[in-house]
Structure formats: C-alpha cells, structure tokens
C-alpha cells in the first residue's frame, strides 16, 4: 500500500438513531431470538440484521445448556431487552421482569402478557395492570399490545416507554392485518411505536416503517427462514427503506392514470 493515499471509511451518511430512554439505537430493527435452531446460527443472523437491541426470554437455568445467549449478545455489543414471554398474569409478568432486571442488569423490559396459548394475543386487562405495577417499580416498559389505538394510548398514559402493537398474531407471518389501526396508533403516540409480531417477510417490515412506526421487532421471520442470516440482512435494508420512504413522502393514491411524460412535442406520424 502506498503511503500517499489512505481511504477513510465513509462516515454514516445520515445518522438516524432511534432514541429510547436516552439511549441511541443505531438500528431500527429489534430482533427476537425465539425459534433459532442453534446459538451459532442465531449469532450470525443477528449480526447480519445489524440489530442494536435484541429480546430474550427468562427461563430456568440449565447447566446442560451449552453457551450463553446473554454472553453472545454482550460479545456482539447488542443491547439486551428481556421479555416476559409465557406469562399469562400480571403477577407472573412482574416477577419475571424483576428476575430479568437482576439477571441482566437492565430496567428495560418487553412486557408480554398473553391470554392463551392458542392465539398468543395480549390480555389487555392483565397488560394494563402489569404496566402500571412495573412503571411504579421503575421499569422502562415496552408494552406488547393489540393493534388497538385506545389501548395503546392507555399504556402510554400509564407510563410505558414504548408501545408495541402487533401486526398479526405471533409467529403467523401474516403481516400487518390492520394498517389503518397502526397508522392511527402512530398518529396519536408520543412514545416510540414498535411494530411487533406477525411479520413474514421484508416487505412487511418496510410497510410498518412506511406507516410511521419507529422500529420493527421480529424473530420468527428470520430464525425460521430457510437462510436466517440472509433474511436478517433483508430486514436490515427493509427497515431502512421503509423509513426513508416515510420521510420522503409518498405520492397520493389516484383513481386514474397520470402521465409522467409531456404530450407536447411528440413526433407525428402520417
């Protein structure tokens, strides 16, 4: 290498961090970890996705388990967002959040209180109760909620740090079933809105961002893809693309065609 020219890496062209609770997250893609067949594969997918924040579940410690997911995230500089997956009551969710705070030394929690195993839909009553308790105990609550604009506002008013409406039920890959409600939630929220659950492929994530969401959270779409790392990379770009499109301002939808070429000056053929 000659000493005269040293190429400096280009600075990030447009820093567009998501700031939550005073923390700047470089990526607007929040990853989940459920469904990955191996820790190595998961690590590769997370790195490819460019995520800055990743959610983990809390379960009984097993000495037989090889490798530590927590250590994997620490090693990759990915911030950890513990969740209360599997909790059906506010009591269980609060206890699980307390354990997560102790184990992982963060007061951020993705609050998930589900009604039943069949739908995995949030139980609104328990969710509201748990949000109130956790906020009072000093937690930063990321509330996983239905795509209900009224409930989302309730959670915000109770002190939720972010509201996370579902696109469709967990693991279905059905995408965003009610884009109108997501837009409504976004238009009224004063806290970050994270589209969580139901994402099937990259275009779903782009749509979420186009609807005005501040970030997207997904797991299954990557961990159960045929090539998780490649899908992680696809989502990285999808979230950026959707965000750019939202900021750029899309054209209005029209009923009839609108020519983009001038009619004047056409050649005439006899």
């Amino acid at each position: 290498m000659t000493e005269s020219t040293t190429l400096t890496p280009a600075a990030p062209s447009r820093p567009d961090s998501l700031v939550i609770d005073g923390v700047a997250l470089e990526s607007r893609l929040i990853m989940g970890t459920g469904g990955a067949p191996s820790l190595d594969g998961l690590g590769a997918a997370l790195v490819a996705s460019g995520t800055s924040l990743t959610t983990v579940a809390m379960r009984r410690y097993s000495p037989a388990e090889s490798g530590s997911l927590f250590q994997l995230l620490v090693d990759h500089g990915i911030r950890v967002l513990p969740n209360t997956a599997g909790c059906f009551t506010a009591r269980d969710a609060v206890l699980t959040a307390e354990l997560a705070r102790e184990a992982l030394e963060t007061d951020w929690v993705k609050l998930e209180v589900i009604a039943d195993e069949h739908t995995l839909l949030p139980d609104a009553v328990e969710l509201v109760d748990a949000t109130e308790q956790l906020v009072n105990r000093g937690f930063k609550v990321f509330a996983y909620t239905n795509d209900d604009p009224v409930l989302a506002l309730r959670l915000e008013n109770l002190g939720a740090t972010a509201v996370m409406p579902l696109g469709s039920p967990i693991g279905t890959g059905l995408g965003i079933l009610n884009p109108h409600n997501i837009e409504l939630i976004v238009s009224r929220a004063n806290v970050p809105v994270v589209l969580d659950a139901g994402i099937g492929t990259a275009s779903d994530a782009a749509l979420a961002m186009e609807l005005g969401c501040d970030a997207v959270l997904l797991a299954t779409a990557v961990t159960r893809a045929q090539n998780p790392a490649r899908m992680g990379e696809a989502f990285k770009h999808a979230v950026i693309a959707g965000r750019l499109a939202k900021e750029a301002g899309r054209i209005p939808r029209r009923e009839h065609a609108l020519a983009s070429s001038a009619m004047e000056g056409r050649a005439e053929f006899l």
Partner: protein
Amino acid sequence: MNITLNGAPRTVADGASITALVSEVTGRALAADGQATDGQRLGVAVAHNSEVVPRSQWHGTALADGDDVELVTAVQGG
C-alpha cells in the same frame, strides 16, 4: 437439608447461602457481592420462596429446609 431448585429436589449443606447454591449450580466462583470473580457477567437471577433476591443479598440469605428456589437465566424466546 432438602430444598426445591427449579422444581426438582436438591440437597444442600445446612444453612447454605444462596451464593453457595448459585456457585455450585453454575460452576462459577462468586464474590460476596454476588458478582462472578472471573469478571464476566453472571446473567442469572434468583427467586427465593417467590421473592426476587438481589444478588447483593445472596451472601447474607441462608436457605432453610423446604425452601423453594428458582434460578433463571436468559434463553432464546420472544
């Protein structure tokens, strides 16, 4: 004496502290403040009879016969 750890019976020394139990199960040496002495983060938490015990209190919390302990960590999910 006998306790229940993560739903299974386990025998521990009389008057063992939570620190001793966690150290034994995880195979990590722990300081009195509940941090791992290898400098890495421990990444586990303890509920003792359904109450979360901060790691700073593990050392001073003695287990009693019949106690129920949950020891949890981060795993894939959600």
